[in-house]
């Protein structure tokens, strides 16, 4: 791999995708290997893995973002421990719903773009700039989305210039919508959103906001077969992360397991000791 050097008028600047576009096989082996991937018609789509429910909510000056772990291909569970919530950089996170392969690739590209920008320019992008970058990536993915490989991310971050957490939702066209309170995306989002709507208060503490995400994902898993619930048998739990002035922090597995356990205990009590 050689050193990519450009003439000043031809320089891609801090744009990593632009850099990839400038290069050929000498720099990036297999650069075009996947280009024929979406040539087939929508009626001949193979069954591919889909990730499902992701949720996010604001509280105080922070944001909490969470997602279940299941991926489904048609009626089958294809992965039980898929990660759908990722740190985008130190002060932001991204969660994905939709076709798992392209979604994970999009996250990888997004993380790399933020890091690349930060290193080349010497300072990170603004939160607004990050949200717009993701919007452009989703828009660039539209041809594949039209063929069934839909990717819809959620983006949450701490705006260091303004001093509070912000939340963004997207649609397949790259439309970017800033959410004031909370948002849910994916197949189980209808149920998750209802739960969050009932429990969301502007005065919610971090602890309450996290529990609300846990309840929302539990409700989604309870009603939607494509959303995975807590799997204590295998020790697989949804991923929950908070983003505050201190940055992105993923909650430990034991903490999430504990919160689910308390939720289940409450249900059990309500049903007179019978969990069914």
């Amino acid at each position: 791999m050689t050193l990519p050097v450009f003439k000043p008028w031809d320089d891609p600047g801090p744009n990593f995708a632009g850099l990839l576009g400038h290069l050929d096989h000498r720099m990036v082996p297999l650069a075009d290997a996947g280009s024929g991937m979406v040539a087939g018609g929508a009626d001949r789509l193979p069954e591919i893995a889909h990730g499902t429910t992701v949720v996010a909510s604001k509280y105080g000056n922070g944001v909490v973002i969470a997602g279940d772990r299941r991926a489904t291909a048609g009626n089958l569970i294809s992965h039980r421990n898929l990660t759908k919530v990722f740190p985008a950089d130190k002060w932001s996170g991204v969660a994905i719903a939709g076709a798992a392969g392209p979604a994970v690739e999009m996250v990888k590209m997004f993380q790399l773009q933020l890091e690349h920008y930060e290193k080349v320019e010497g300072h990170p992008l603004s939160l607004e700039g990050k949200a717009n970058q993701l919007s452009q990536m989703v828009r660039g993915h539209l041809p594949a989305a039209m063929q069934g490989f839909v990717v819809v991310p959620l983006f949450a971050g701490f705006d260091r210039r303004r001093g509070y957490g912000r939340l963004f939702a997207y649609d397949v066209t790259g439309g970017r919508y800033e959410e004031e309170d909370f948002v849910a995306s994916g197949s189980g989002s209808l149920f998750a959103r209802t739960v969050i709507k009932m429990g969301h208060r502007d005065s919610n503490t971090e602890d309450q906001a996290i529990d609300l995400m846990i309840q929302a994902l539990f409700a989604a898993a309870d009603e939607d077969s494509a959303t995975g619930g807590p799997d204590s048998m295998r020790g697989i739990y949804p991923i929950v992360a908070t983003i505050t002035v201190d940055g992105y922090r993923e909650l430990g597995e034991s903490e999430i397991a504990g919160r689910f356990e308390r939720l289940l205990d409450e249900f059990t009590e309500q049903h007179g000791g019978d969990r069914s």
Partner: protein
Amino acid sequence: MNMPFYVAPEQLMKDRADFAQKGIARGRSLAAIEFDAGVLLCAENPSRNLRKISEIYDRIAFAGVGRYNEYDQLRIAGIRHADLKGYTYSRDDVDPQALANQYAQMLGQIFTHETKPLEVEILVASVGYRPDGDRMFHIRYDGSVSDEHGFAVLGGEAEAIRERLGRSYEDELSLSGGLKAAVAALAGDERTLGSGELEVAVLDRLDKGRCFRRLESGEIDGLL
């Protein structure tokens, strides 16, 4: 018909080397030193914005002295090289030696074939998971590379600074000890350097992801 004068290759190379050295000597120097928890890079640099030291990848840092626009272009090329390699293969496959070799090829090529050599000296430093995994590659304007151990010095007054740092350097220095040694060597006997004239960064061995961290002036003052 105009005939160009014959210039002996030895003379040509010497002229170019003199030219590059003169350019480098105009700027201030820089030292890098291995300490118990990583690699410390310390430059005499009164500018807060035109940086000599920067991050390349998870465990790799870059430092340059000489003409700013020239080493900055090399810095960006290095970031691109590393990010592309990490994207194409994996983050584990980005290594400082390949990058140093690429820099050497480029500087050597420009030195012999272009109208003007680059007036820069650069350092590619990387921190290992254990102290014996630390690497420092010093690359000069003509593309020559040297593999440095313990500490490295770049810039016009490198000889004198290297001698001073060689006297105070020892294995397993603390961060504070390493910084003091580097700053004293850069300053010499007649001057003292404060945090306002220093640019300092470390590659922290114990960090899991991106190990590069800049030290702010308050922290530098505290350590000194």
